[in-house]
C-alpha cells in the first residue's frame, strides 16, 4: 500500500488491517454495489474498444477476410496461412527491418541520448536557458502530429525548404532521397521531451555528494556519467528505452510525412498494416501482421512490468 501513514485514531478502526486483507474492505463507506457501479462504465468501454478488438484480431488474422470481393462476404479460416504469406513477403520483411531501424535510430539512440544529454547539460545551466530549451522541446512534443508533419515538409522541401536554404543545396528532395532518415529526425524532434523529463527527474535523485567527489578527483564529464550517474539511473534508462521503443514501434505518424514511400522505403509496420488493410483490402493479412505487433508489444510491456515490480 502506498497510502501515507494515517495517525487519526478514528481512521485506524476501519482502515483495512492485515487480518482483513484478502476480503472485501470498504474504507470510504462506498458500498460494494456502488463501487461496482463506479467501475463498470470504464470496464465496459475498455472491454468493447480494447479487449474485444484484441481478441477479434486473433480470429481475423487466421482468415482470408477482405474489404471487398467474395472473401468479404464469406471469409474462410485459413489457419496460419497469413503468417506463411508474411514469411515470403518481401514487403513485409522490408517493413519489419525498417521498423527495427526506425525504433533503434529515433527512440533507442536518438530520443534516449538527446533526452539524457539535455537533462544532463541543463542540470547546472542558468534558469532562463533551461526554461527556454525545455519549453521548445516540450512544445515540439505537444503540437499536433499533423501540424508537425507540415513543419517538417517546410524543413525538407525540395524548393525553398529550410534545409536546402541553409546548406545551399537547392533542389534536393530530402524526403525522396533519405525517407528513413527523414522520419527518424521527425520522430526525434517530436518525442525527445519524454526522455528529457524522465531523465531530469532521475538525475535529481543522484546524490550530489557523489557528483562533488567526482568533480574533486577531476573526473571528466563522460567518466562522471559512466561511473557515478549511470549506476544510479540504470533502472530509468531501461524503463525509458522500453517505453519509447514500444511507442515508436506502434507510431503511425511517419505516415503523415512520407505515407510509407517512396516505393515502401519508409513503410514501418503500422503504415504497412494500414496500407494492406485499407488500401489493399487484405483485412485478414493485415490482422495477422497486427497480431505479430501485438505479441512484440506484449513481450516489451511484460519486460517493463517486471522491471516496475522489481523496483517497487
Amino acid at each position, binding site marked *: 500500500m*502506498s*497510502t*501515507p501513514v*494515517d495517525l487519526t485514531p*478514528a*481512521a485506524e478502526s*476501519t*482502515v483495512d488491517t492485515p487480518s482483513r486483507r*484478502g*476480503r472485501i474492505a470498504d*474504507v*470510504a*463507506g462506498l*458500498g*460494494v454495489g*456502488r*463501487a461496482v457501479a*463506479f467501475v463498470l*462504465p*470504464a470496464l465496459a*468501454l475498455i472491454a*468493447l474498444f*480494447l*479487449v474485444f*478488438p*484484441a481478441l477479434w*484480431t486473433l480470429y*481475423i488474422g487466421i482468415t482470408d*477476410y477482405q474489404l471487398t470481393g467474395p472473401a468479404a462476404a464469406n471469409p474462410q479460416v485459413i489457419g496460419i496461412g497469413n503468417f506463411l504469406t508474411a514469411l515470403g513477403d518481401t514487403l513485409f520483411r522490408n517493413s519489419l527491418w525498417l521498423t527495427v531501424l526506425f525504433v533503434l535510430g529515433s527512440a533507442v539512440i536518438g530520443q534516449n541520448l538527446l533526452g539524457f544529454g539535455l537533462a544532463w*547539460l*541543463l542540470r547546472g545551466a542558468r534558469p532562463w536557458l533551461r526554461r527556454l*530549451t*525545455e519549453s521548445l522541446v516540450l*512544445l515540439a*512534443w*505537444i*503540437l*499536433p502530429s*499533423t501540424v508537425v508533419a*507540415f*513543419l517538417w*515538409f*517546410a*524543413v525538407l*522541401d525540395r524548393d*525553398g*525548404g*529550410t534545409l536546402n536554404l541553409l546548406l545551399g543545396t537547392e533542389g534536393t528532395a530530402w524526403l525522396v532521397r533519405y525517407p528513413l532518415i527523414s522520419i527518424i529526425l521527425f520522430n526525434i524532434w517530436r518525442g525527445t521531451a519524454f526522455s528529457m523529463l*524522465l531523465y531530469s527527474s532521475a538525475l535529481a535523485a543522484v546524490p550530489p555528494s557523489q557528483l562533488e567527489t567526482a568533480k574533486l578527483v577531476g573526473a571528466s564529464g563522460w567518466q562522471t556519467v559512466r561511473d557515478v550517474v549511470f549506476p544510479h539511473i540504470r533502472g530509468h534508462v531501461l524503463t525509458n528505452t522500453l*517505453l519509447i521503443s514500444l511507442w515508436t514501434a506502434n*507510431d*503511425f505518424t511517419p505516415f503523415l510525412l512520407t505515407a510509407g514511400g517512396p516505393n515502401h522505403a519508409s513503410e514501418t509496420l503500422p503504415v504497412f*498494416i*494500414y496500407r494492406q488493410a485499407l488500401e489493399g483490402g487484405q483485412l485478414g493479412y493485415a*490482422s495477422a501482421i*497486427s497480431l505479430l505487433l*501485438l505479441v512484440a*508489444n506484449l513481450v516489451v*510491456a511484460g519486460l517493463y*512490468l517486471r522491471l516496475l515490480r522489481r523496483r517497487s
Partner: protein
Amino acid sequence: MSVQYLLRRIGFYTLIAAVLFFFAVPMLWLASAPFDAKPGLGLRWPEWTLDNVGKTLEHPYALTSLLNSLLLCGIATIVTTVCAALAAYALSRVRIPGRDLLLYLLLLLSSVVTGTAAMVPIFVMMFQLGLINSQYGTALVIAGGMLPAAIFILKDFMDSVPRSYEESARVFGASPGQVLRHVVLPVARPGIATILVWAFVNAWGNFLLPFLLLREVETQPAAVLLRTLQDEGGSANLTVIPVFSLLYSIPVVLLYLIVSKRYGFRFHGGIKS
C-alpha cells in the same frame, strides 16, 4: 585550468545552441507562413498580410473541422475523465479480491493494444455496427483507448489522498454521495485536472482513429482535414494550410502554457503517448 574551463563553456553553449536551433527552426514556419502573402513550404521573411486568415475562414470545411475537433475531443475527454475518476476512486477505496490483478492487466492492456495494433478489428467492428462516420462512436473508441492509462494514473493519485478525510465526514453522518461531492472531489481536483488536460491533448492530436473511422469530410476533425488539404488535387492548399495549422495548434499551446505555469512540467505520472 582556465583554458579548459573556457573550452568547456564554449562547447556547452555550442551544443545548446545547436539543440535550440534544431527545435526552434521548424517552428518558425508556423509563425511566418500564415501571415505571408505567398506562403510556401519553406522558410522566408514574409510579405506580411492577414488575407490568408480570411481565406481560411471562408474555406468550406475549415471552421467545421475545428468544431468537429472540439466535439470529438470534448466527448472523449469528458467520458475518459468521468469514467476514470469513478473507477479509480472505487478501486482505491474498496478492496475487492483480484483488484491488483485487474490494475496490472489494465496497465498491460493500455500499452499493448494500441490504435495501430488493433486498427483492423476496430475498423471492421465500427463498419459492421454502421458507425463509420459517427463522431460519437469515434469519440468512444478514443476514450476506450485512453481509459486504462487514465485509471492507472488517477488511482495512484487517489491512493495518495488521506482516507481520514472521508472517515471524518462519515463519522459526522455524511452520505456516500455527500462524501464524494464535498470531500473527495475537491481533494482530487489536481489529479482530475491532470487527466483532463492529458486526455484533451491526446484526443486533440489523435490522427489515426478519426482518419480510419471518419471518412466523410463533413465529420472530420482538424487533424484529418489537414491531411485532406494536403492531398487536395495533388498539391497542397498553401493559402489555407498555414493559418489552419496555427488555429488548430492554439488550444494545445494554451493548455501547455496553463499547465506549465500552474504545475510545471514535471512527472506526476502524466504521460502523453
